[in-house]
């Protein structure tokens, strides 16, 4: 019996939801266990209980065979449990070394950075995780930041590592590196709990997979004896089909046309260089790329909240370069922003107001001064039904909804205004299989009805599945354009990391 972690009959209730409904979970020494499940299945809650961030309502936890009460992350760390969160907890202006030793109880009034650095270097060698110990966090890539988080945990002599959706922010290359690291850690006898909803990854890395659904364990599988279809069924309770066959698109006129757009990032660097891009009616154009290569700025430029330095934007041959977001909405541009929590919705307003926040000022929702609440409410009710938005009522604050339902709110609001063009930035990031499928279906409907869609996504499968044409962006430049089915994932991966399309054959 090597059960290093044993959780018995864990229950945790939040207002309105039973997040963990009697979950039994265990992990052995030196194994990688995956916790698989949709958003809201209870994976993160369970692990936050183990890490002492939430207090369980009932149930028992045993670590190394001993019954324990974990009331804070400090307790967890003392028991040898560490967690890497989706959102990193690093201090940007500090160096890697400083971040790793930050908060250690062995720190004295005077800290000897050099000794710590030597010790950190030993850890780096042992686990083959290399980051410049003198680099400032703000200079690091997302993948490197994650390495620092892992080093931070290892430095505290942790045996049990919890990784919450660690690959969500990584490039395919970085994922490979992470997996290599995880395998080394496993060989060193560490236990890894890997939270994810990505089937490919879970199958690749795990020794054992535990699937959660609606706060309960819906199955436990050996990755060698299962397949994606079965796991997906355990996750969502139904068969998921992920290969969409597109009807041939009817080529229409250009709707959105970006001409020689150059733009700065919020930090003042050149983020987009001479971008030429157009979207026609009846097509989905996918923009693939590793995040941070100008997608955010492109999204902002098309949304109307950032002005380009040079270049022009045309919408149906009208120059909209200097128009406001409102004017663009009124012209028929629907925008699904990457940051749905902080841009796409006003989380502190009730659900029904968010459903009309882009059109409340129009007939019949308001007159010259006053809002027509009965109209707004009946309209919102209709959208909630039509888009199957799960909310207890119309007036709860929008922030109480789950990620998938938040995105459905945005989609419902935009689609109900019948836009001719949709900018969809990372429309399914962090969403479960069901919600993702729903959103893909809706975007395809727009396309089939003759609208244009620009799909900005880091998820290559999503791009490959949905796009009629694919553009690859790297370092603020378009690396090339591909037709549907023209190239392989690997080719696009190369372009995403800086190879121009015409140079692809030279790299083999």
């Amino acid at each position, binding site marked *: 019996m090597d059960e290093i972690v044993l959780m018995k009959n864990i229950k945790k209730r*939040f*207002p*309105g939801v039973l997040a963990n409904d009697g979950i039994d979970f265990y992990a052995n020494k030196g194994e990688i266990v995956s916790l698989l499940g949709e958003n809201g299945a209870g994976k993160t809650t369970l692990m936050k209980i183990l890490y002492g961030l*939430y*207090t369980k309502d009932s149930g028992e936890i045993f670590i190394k065979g001993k019954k324990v*009460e974990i*009331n*804070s992350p400090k307790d967890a760390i003392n028991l040898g449990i560490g967690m890497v969160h989706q959102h990193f907890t690093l201090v940007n202006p500090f160096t890697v070394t400083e971040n790793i030793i930050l908060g250690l109880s062995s720190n004295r009034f005077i800290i000897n950075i050099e000794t710590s650095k030597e010790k950190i270097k030993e850890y780096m060698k042992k686990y083959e995780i290399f980051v410049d110990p003198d680099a400032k966090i703000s200079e690091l890539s997302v993948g490197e930041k994650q390495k620092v988080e892992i080093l931070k945990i290892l430095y505290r002599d942790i045996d049990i590592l919890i990784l919450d959706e660690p690959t969500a922010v990584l490039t395919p290359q970085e994922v490979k590196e992470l997996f290599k690291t995880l395998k080394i850690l496993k060989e060193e006898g560490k236990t890894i709990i890997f939270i994810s909803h990505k089937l490919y990854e879970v199958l690749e890395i795990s020794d054992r997979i535990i699937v959660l659904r609606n706060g309960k364990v819906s199955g436990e599988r050996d990755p060698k004896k299962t397949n994606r279809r079965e796991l997906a069924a355990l996750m969502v309770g139904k068969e998921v089909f992920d290969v969409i066959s597109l009807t041939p698109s009817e080529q229409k006129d250009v709707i959105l046309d970006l001409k020689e757009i150059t733009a700065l990032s919020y930090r003042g660097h050149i983020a987009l260089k001479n971008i030429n891009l157009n979207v026609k009616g009846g097509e989905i154009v996918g923009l693939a790329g590793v995040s941070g290569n100008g997608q955010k700025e492109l999204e902002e430029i098309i*949304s109307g*909240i950032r002005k380009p330095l040079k270049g022009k934007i045309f919408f149906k041959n009208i120059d909209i370069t200097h128009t*406001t*977001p*409102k004017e*663009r*909405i009124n012209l028929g541009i629907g*925008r699904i*922003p990457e940051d749905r929590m*902080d*841009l*796409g*919705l*006003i*989380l*502190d*307003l009730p659900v029904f*107001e968010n459903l009309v*926040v*882009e059109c*409340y*000022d129009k007939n019949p929702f*308001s007159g010259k*001064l*006053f*809002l027509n*609440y009965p109209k707004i409410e009946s309209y919102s009710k209709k959208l909630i039904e039509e888009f199957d938005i799960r909310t207890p009522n119309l007036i*709860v*604050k929008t922030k*109480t909804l789950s990620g998938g339902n938040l995105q459905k709110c945005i989609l419902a609001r935009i689609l109900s205004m019948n836009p001719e063009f949709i900018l969809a930035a990372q429309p399914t990031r962090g969403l479960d299989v069901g919600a993702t499928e729903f959103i893909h279906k809706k975007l395809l409907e727009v396309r089939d009805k003759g609208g244009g869609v620009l799909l900005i996504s880091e998820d290559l499968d999503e791009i490959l599945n949905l796009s009629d044409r694919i553009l690859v962006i790297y370092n603020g430049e378009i690396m090339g354009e591909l037709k549907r089915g023209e190239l392989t994932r690997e080719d696009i991966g190369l372009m995403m990391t800086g190879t121009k399309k015409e140079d692809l054959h030279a790299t083999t």
Partner: protein
Amino acid sequence: MPLPKFRLEKRESVPNWFRMALPFIAIGISFIFSSIIILFAGKNPVTSIYSIFYGALGTRLGLMETLVKATPLILTGIAVSFAFTGKFWNIGAEGQLYAGALAATWAGISNFNIPSFLYIILLLVVGFIAGGLWALIPGYLKAKLKVDDVVTTLLMNYIILYLVTAILEGPWRDPVTMWPQSIMISPNAEFPKLLQKSRVHFGLIVGLLVVFLVYIIIKHTKLGFNIRAIGANPNASNFLGINVTKTIIITSLISGGIAGLAGVGEVAGLHYHLTENISPGYGYTGIVIAMLGGLNPIGVLFASFFFAIIITGAQYMSRATGVTSFIADVIQGITLLVLLAMLILYEYRIRRVE
């Protein structure tokens, strides 16, 4: 037995009863702290606090004075609350009150030959405009240049206070008494009294009307929707097509205008002339009222009456028990501090750890 351990845990949502109870808990705690101070003064806190309420509510005279004090407080409270709803941090209601009072005095001493009701409306209009313009300057600076509104609205208070002093010491000095105060306004411009043998005046009606109007604006108009949206998330509001710049400017104008009306009421309803200390800090108390009222117009109404009670009652208590009436300021200050500290409980709840 070991002491029980507690910890803060993030809340998913705040129950409504808790939202309602929080101001009362804050008031209760501030009374406890105030009692300690009264004890230091060698007096009995129970009788002292009782005499505050008795003085403010127990006699007709007291009750009338409470209503008189509530009049400017309702207006400054709702002015601040309106601004805070749209994240315009208006700390300048005090100055806007003086701007309104200054303009109303100007109109009042100009002796226009117009009927009384028109004269009163004129006073209200010029007072609103003056207060509004005084707040518009920081509003515009915030909206267009992102200048910090807390700093500008606060500093604008000192500018107008010294301006009022300069005018009262100079051109407007009462030529008869030579006091630094204006001459009396035209009797035609005076607000009517509402109740016999009391100082309760028409300003109270103005206050209640404004509370009602603000409620309607916030809840039922497009402008109110914009203000609430910006208050909740200015970035998202901008992205979603709401004209943030314009809305902030309008918010500042209306908020300052309402605070200006408080000044009009003090001049035309109570003193009939302008003095340097026409407000003992009603604008600042308005901030406490807005917070205690939870930025809700009805809550603001209750909170203004509460502070009117404290201010009026403290004077009675001072005569009755000998505890200084400054205890009213202490209660105000502690209530705000306790309330601000307790606002964390909107986000977190206390859980006992076994």
